[in-house]
């Protein structure tokens, strides 16, 4: 009972944070990918934003239930709390991003894998229908799901939204597909390789260059580096890749890096107990890896539950060992850093963030 009470408090905290952000930052003026469903019915942005904030509340509960299934109640509540206060999820929901909805779909999928309750499948389908704008991301998930299922033909129904989209707007569908995979659209990529080859042609090392400096090797390297950037702590715990190209708030507060590192063992545990969940989250990184620029924090939101769960696990490890001086000192440092950065972020959202957003809009 007390867990649900805490969840209600978290929901209130979550909604307050989102409405606070919405008051100051002019997301309404920012270009972003709208949810196709709302575009189809030609409805204003406000409805889209209210919808995504509502979906955010649903996500909070889904993360709680998923974490509870995987671990225990304490980790689940901590993970849910981290979701509620994270600027990453808050900004995306307030911006009306369709990826909040896709996150719901992914979480439903994870729960379905764990519980096998029919209800989740139906809900997953509804979530998929609403997310037609980013159809490329449905493919790896559906393929993976189909691949792991024996009676795969039942799940071909999930492809219906795709069929609907292609029939409704074939040219748009092709463009959407092209725009989703922007990895190789950077002319700088080819120019760099050509420049290298041109320079080597002036020397006696042209043959060596032809072998080791060909574009396919560099494509592989490019993908590899894009993938590696998604494993770097700087991506998630600092504003290295700015949210919506302007924000100085980090996706996840820097102080949570320490419990995250402590909780890394969780991933090893998941690999042994629930490999499919881990694989699903790993595949969920793919859309961001093939983006330009990469990482794309909007798409990368799909992996946020794993980060929150890992950090929550780390916090529980610290709390379990709080009697030790070192652990209690580390916990104190984490609390101070998180609260301090939370406070700084809170003030920054009302003072400088709106100006940063306006600067980007003026540039456009």
């Amino acid at each position: 009972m007390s867990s649900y009470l805490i969840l209600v408090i978290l929901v209130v905290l979550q909604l307050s944070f989102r409405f606070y952000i919405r008051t100051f930052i002019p997301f309404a003026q920012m270009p972003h990918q709208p949810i196709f469903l709302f575009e189809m019915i030609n409805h204003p942005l406000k409805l889209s934003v209210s919808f995504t904030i509502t979906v955010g509340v649903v996500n909070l509960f889904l993360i709680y239930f998923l974490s509870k299934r995987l671990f225990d109640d304490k980790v689940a509540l901590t993970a849910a709390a981290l979701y509620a206060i994270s600027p990453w999820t808050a900004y995306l929901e307030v911006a009306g991003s369709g990826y909040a909805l896709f996150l719901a779909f992914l979480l439903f999928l994870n729960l379905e894998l764990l519980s096998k309750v029919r209800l989740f499948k139906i809900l997953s389908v509804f979530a998929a229908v609403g997310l037609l704008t980013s159809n490329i991301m449905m493919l790896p998930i559906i393929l993976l799901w189909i691949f792991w299922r024996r009676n795969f033909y039942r799940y071909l129904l999930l492809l219906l939204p795709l069929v609907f989209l292609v029939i409704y707007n074939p040219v748009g569908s092709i463009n959407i597909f092209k725009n989703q995979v922007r990895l190789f659209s950077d002319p700088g990529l080819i120019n760099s390789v050509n420049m290298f080859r041109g320079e080597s042609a002036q020397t006696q090392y042209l043959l060596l260059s032809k072998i080791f400096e060909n574009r396919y090797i560099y494509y592989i390297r490019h993908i590899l580096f894009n993938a590696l950037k998604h494993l770097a702590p700087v991506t998630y715990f600092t504003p290295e890749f700015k949210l919506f190209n302007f924000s100085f708030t980090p996706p996840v507060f820097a102080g949570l890096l320490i419990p995250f590192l402590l909780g890394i063992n969780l991933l090893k545990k998941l690999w042994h107990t629930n490999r499919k969940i881990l694989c699903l989250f790993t595949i969920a990184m793919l859309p961001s890896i093939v983006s330009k620029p990469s990482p794309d924090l909007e798409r990368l939101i799909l992996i946020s539950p794993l980060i929150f769960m890992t950090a929550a696990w780390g916090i529980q490890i610290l709390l379990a060992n709080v009697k030790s001086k070192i652990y209690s000192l580390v916990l104190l440092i984490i609390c101070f850093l998180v609260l301090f950065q939370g406070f700084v972020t809170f003030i920054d959202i009302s003072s400088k963030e709106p100006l940063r957003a306006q600067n980007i809009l003026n540039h456009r």
Partner: protein
Amino acid sequence: MINYRFSKTQVILIIVALTILGGALRIYDNTENPPSLNIDEVSFGYNAYSILQTGRDEHGVFMPLSFKSVGDYKNPLPIYLLVPFISVFGLNEFSVRMPTAIIATLSIPLFFVFFQKLVGKRSVALVSTILLTLSPWHIYYARYAAENTIAMSLIIAATLLFLKFKDDKNIIIGLLSGLLFALSMYTYYAERLFVPLLVAILVILFRVEFKLRYTRLILFLTGFSIISLPMVISSIWGVDSARAQMTCICNDIEFTRNVLLSDTNQNSLYGMLQNNSLLFFYGIRKFLNYASPTFLFYNSLGMTVMGTYGLGVMYLFEMPLLTYGVLSLFKINSKVKVLVLSWLILGLFPAAVTLNEQHPGRTINILPMLIFLSGLGGVELIKVIKLKFSNQMRLSTYALLGGLIIWSFAQAFLIFRVHFPIERGEAFMEGTKQTVEYALEHNNQYSQIVFDPTRGLDGPYIVSIPHMYVLFYSKYDPAVYQKENKRKEDNIFGFDKYRFRSINWRADQNKTGVLFIGSPWSIPEKDLKPNELLKKVYLTNGQVAFLIVSPQP
């Protein structure tokens, strides 16, 4: 290699071979590649020449502990180190670059001894030394006069001596260790933040070893403090504080413009608290940025054009080694673990609190520990592959790793040999030497020789400080230069018949008998008469860097 036990003689032979190989990579053709002496190098060289000739620096200060140079207050040790070389070989590229190359080469056996002392495993030490010998980071900063390479070598030697000191309690070794630690702080600015913290960590970690001999530890600290004292005073209250002001993170343009939005209001307490809080987290971002694959493996060395492919501070094949090394670190002795982790964190601290997004020069202090972790990871990974992989998997892994190693070395070779001189020549002030040589050759034909200090292919954004190159290549008498009034007519800086000012061709085109040397931005080629253009100086990439002209009547 992992199970085979090398005899002492074999190990020595391997180390000698690695030293020779490392020396070849660091010394071969280093006077031509990098393509030119950069501003710091000519400044080091000329100040060392001035010390040799007069005992004073270019500004006339006797045996300074801080060289004012062009207002950046250079560290003394790299300059004093050049003096014997210049006395023997003369003032040229060889004598400027050779000390760093030699110290870097001799640091290879030093690193082996250090790694072995650190972890006690010969295999790890050998693999780490091989990785160091071939390290692009170490090779790059050994091929030109880089103070950070010398400083890092001093720190390794000092730490090695300290580790010996804690075992032997020999006070001579202790004092020598303290001396080397202090000297490293006179070699490179980053050491002034890093070394005191490192010494503190070493003392705290190994204080128990000095249980009955605390006086020796105190003597070590006292010796270290006394030698460091002049530098500390200068850094806080003296001329070196200017350097700290110049490079402090609070002056970061990216931070001021995009984070503070140019609102640097420090008048109100609230404003000050808010700005400094944002600065704190900006520093954390910079700090964690060094743990990103972009810095470690992509293009952080800056040997090619930014935003394109290049060399990171480590090879791509070291990635799995480094990862496994970090995991293996937690299995070894806790003091070594703490030392390695502390070293890595503290080594990034100077770069995190200064300007520049990613500065491999300021962070080179973490190189030994990264190399150590890669070596450790390599040894442990090979053990795992041998024990747990099937034959087929083992062969596939070795093939993949081997392919990656070959590709990494081939790419590094092409970048060092081909792309770096072409793409980064301008960063090393390529072309300035040729202009100075022309000016010296035709010195008698002109009443005045004017250099425009600005240059750049994309625009006149680079300030090249040509007067240092003139002093260097002309071997200008330091005694004369020190005493000469360098503010000439119209307050223009110059000496002898050389003037260093912006060229305004509209006004200057009528000044016959004067030689002008400037970039195409200051001397538009289309405005020149047929006989006025005397020479074009090209970069290795084929673009025009300078025009040498003289107005005709």
